[in-house]
């Protein structure tokens, strides 16, 4: 039996999504900028998608931009706003455990004369609001914090952060990387005080190569790609119409009966964490239950190298990640876990299990059973 428990790396595309995309590619394949009927047809899909996201996020259609994915959304949000607002100040704030697409954008901006404060996280992987208060200064123009951490599933206090920012005299932009959260949470940027929000298609059973960025209407932002001035010049390049149709279709399907699906996901997660707690020498990183995201569990297995356990599980057709998949082709130690103060010996012994609405109890049990069989064996054979 196969158990795909790596849904934070990517998810399987839903059939309704691929059907729609095939139709766009084979039948309604026009360039949305073309003046003829084919172009109008294609443009229709974009309008439809924008209308959906506008309603879903309770924002205006004008505030939705489509990108090539999460990385570009994050890059555009961080670099685009920093460059456009630098006259108001050159100080940026983010956290220790952001995704590399935010962290490395920040690194780039440091090279361009910006100052960046990296907020620490506590043992549970949650950013310290006090540290944020202390970091704020008259120079601060942007704060970027992820909604749900991709490695341990820690949910960040987004509303509280927004409240703190709002209480400042000067406007400070708030960017939220919601790539792991969108599709599991109802997010309303207007109400929550979010100015920019990143979403990715392939984490919500949509296609790879498509993402979106919500940009609040009044936000000053500069493009980072230059070309045919599509999407009001903020994101040049022929729109990825099949991708746009696909991400909208995927999002629509995710939000159907969302509460029921999320409840079910929490029950699966509880089943899994209960099973994990029965194992010796095993630690769950971060919070569990309703205090954490429904679909991510990070577990450290003392005395086992994560890659070895990963490949042993793979032999039983159970697919998981060591650390986070986005950077796991370089066996570097997880920044998040380090930031959370996880013990050194456990850093290289940590796996991430991530579920989706398609995950079943059988898959969870299959995985728990496999861990039961494998752990004693793997702990016996170690370097001495």
């Amino acid at each position, binding site marked *: 039996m196969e158990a795909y428990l790596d849904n934070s790396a990517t998810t399987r595309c839903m059939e309704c999504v691929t059907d729609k995309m095939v139709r766009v590619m084979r039948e309604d394949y026009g360039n949305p900028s073309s003046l003829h009927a084919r172009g109008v047809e294609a443009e229709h899909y974009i309008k439809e998608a924008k209308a959906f996201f506008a309603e879903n996020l309770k924002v205006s259609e004008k505030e939705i931009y489509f990108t090539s994915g999460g990385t570009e959304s994050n890059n555009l949000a961080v670099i685009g706003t920093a460059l456009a607002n630098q006259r108001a100040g050159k100080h940026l704030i983010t956290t220790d455990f952001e995704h590399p697409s935010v962290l490395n954008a920040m690194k780039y901006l440091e090279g361009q004369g910006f100052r960046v404060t990296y907020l620490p996280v506590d043992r549970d992987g949650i950013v310290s609001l006090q540290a944020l208060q202390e970091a704020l200064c008259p120079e601060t123009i942007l704060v970027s914090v992820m909604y749900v951490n991709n490695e341990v599933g820690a949910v960040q206090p987004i509303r509280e952060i927004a409240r703190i920012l709002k209480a400042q005299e000067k406007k400070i932009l708030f960017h939220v990387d919601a790539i792991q959260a969108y599709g599991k949470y109802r997010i309303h940027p207007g109400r929550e005080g979010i100015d920019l929000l990143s979403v990715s298609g392939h984490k919500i059973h949509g296609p790879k190569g498509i993402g979106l960025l919500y940009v609040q209407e009044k936000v000053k932002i500069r493009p980072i790609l230059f070309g045919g001035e599509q999407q009001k010049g903020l994101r040049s390049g022929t729109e990825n119409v099949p991708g746009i149709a696909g991400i909208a279709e995927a999002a629509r399907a995710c939000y159907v009966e969302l509460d029921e699906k999320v409840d079910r996901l929490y029950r699966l997660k509880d089943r899994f964490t209960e099973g994990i707690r029965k194992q010796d020498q095993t630690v769950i990183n971060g919070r569990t239950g309703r205090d954490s995201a429904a679909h991510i569990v990070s577990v450290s297995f003392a005395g086992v190298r994560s*890659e070895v*356990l990963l*490949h*042993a599980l*793979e032999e039983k057709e159970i697919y998981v990640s060591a650390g986070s998949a986005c950077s796991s082709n*370089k066996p570097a130690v997880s920044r998040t876990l380090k930031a959370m103060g996880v013990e050194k010996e456990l850093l290289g012994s940590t796996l991430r299990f991530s579920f989706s609405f398609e995950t079943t109890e059988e898959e969870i049990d299959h995985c728990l059973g496999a861990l039961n069989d494998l752990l004693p064996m793997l702990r016996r054979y170690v*370097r*001495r």
Partner: protein
Amino acid sequence: MFQAFLIKYGEIGVKGKNRYVFEDALVARMKQVLYHVDGTFQITKEQGRIYVEAEGAFDYEETVASLQRVFGIVGICPVVLVEDRGFEELSRDVMEYMHRMYEGVTKTFKVHTRRANKHYPMDSMEVNAELGGRILEQFPGLKVDVHAPDILLQIELRSHICIYSEVIPGPGGMPLGTNGRSMLLLSGGIDSPVAGYMVAKRGVYIDATYFHAPPYTSERAKEKVVDLAKKVARYTGPIRLHVVNFTDIQMYIYDRCPHDELTIIMRRYMMRIAQQIAEDTGCLALITGESIGQVASQTVPSLVATNDVCTLPVFRPLIAFDKEDIVSVAKKIDTYEISILPFEDCCTTFVAKHPVTKPQVERIRRSEQALSEKIEDMVKEALDTREVIQVR
């Protein structure tokens, strides 16, 4: 401007009566590599020379690059081939050649004529002098230097005439297939692909054995070895890669033998298995990337202990190489970048923190007796279940 190449080969020339064997092998290999290049090529052997002629349009750079990977070739000369239509025509052709190649440059030159066609009306000295004089008249930037010229313009008078001045170095060595086949123990490291390349360069066909230890080594580690084999195969021709699952044997050794001897005993079993595959598939020797003192398992006593199980000769072309020398060859054959990708190989997984560096063969043999109960069956199982991948 060039439609043909003159191929120079080194050591083959001295091979006496067997010479045709070597030449035929060289031509066969050239045909093989040029098959994949855009263009149609005619390869001809003539009076101790091999010519490659392209018919119509062809990819010059790719042709040269491909020929540079053919062992046995020491030089690739892009030539202008002309019919013999008398000296005046030849002179015109030579001047045109010089114009195209050296217009406006300031250099020294010398004309060197070989008169293989003994009926040519002028002798080689006359041709040299006459052409040299005309070049001096027409190219003010060129001066004669007969001892160390920048440009050595070569004219070969045969049934047709060859004009060239450029020699692109080839890899040297002996044509593939002139020295049987050997089995390379290929890991994912820097050394073993280089070792395979070096032995192949002496005319030996290569097959390879890789030891896979899931879950301790990943599918990607295996992919990496296949990718390495592909790079090596550009020089050595197709490689049959035998992938042997070594996990059970490794665990069994781990359970039953002293830990500081683990690596040595593992390597002895790898040698035994590779040797068995070699014998079963017609390979005459084993090849390893070992180099004295590089790691604990490659000290001289360790090499002795490993070699103890081999009955076939073991070629270790890197034995006295320093790491940086190995790296420079790896870079040249383009395996380095792949080799340094960080995937586990099965030797490092269980390596003891303090492995023996001076193992005694007698003691190792005694330690191995603890394996006698099951090891033969396990080796047989490993041999039977091996996966064979054709790499080309």
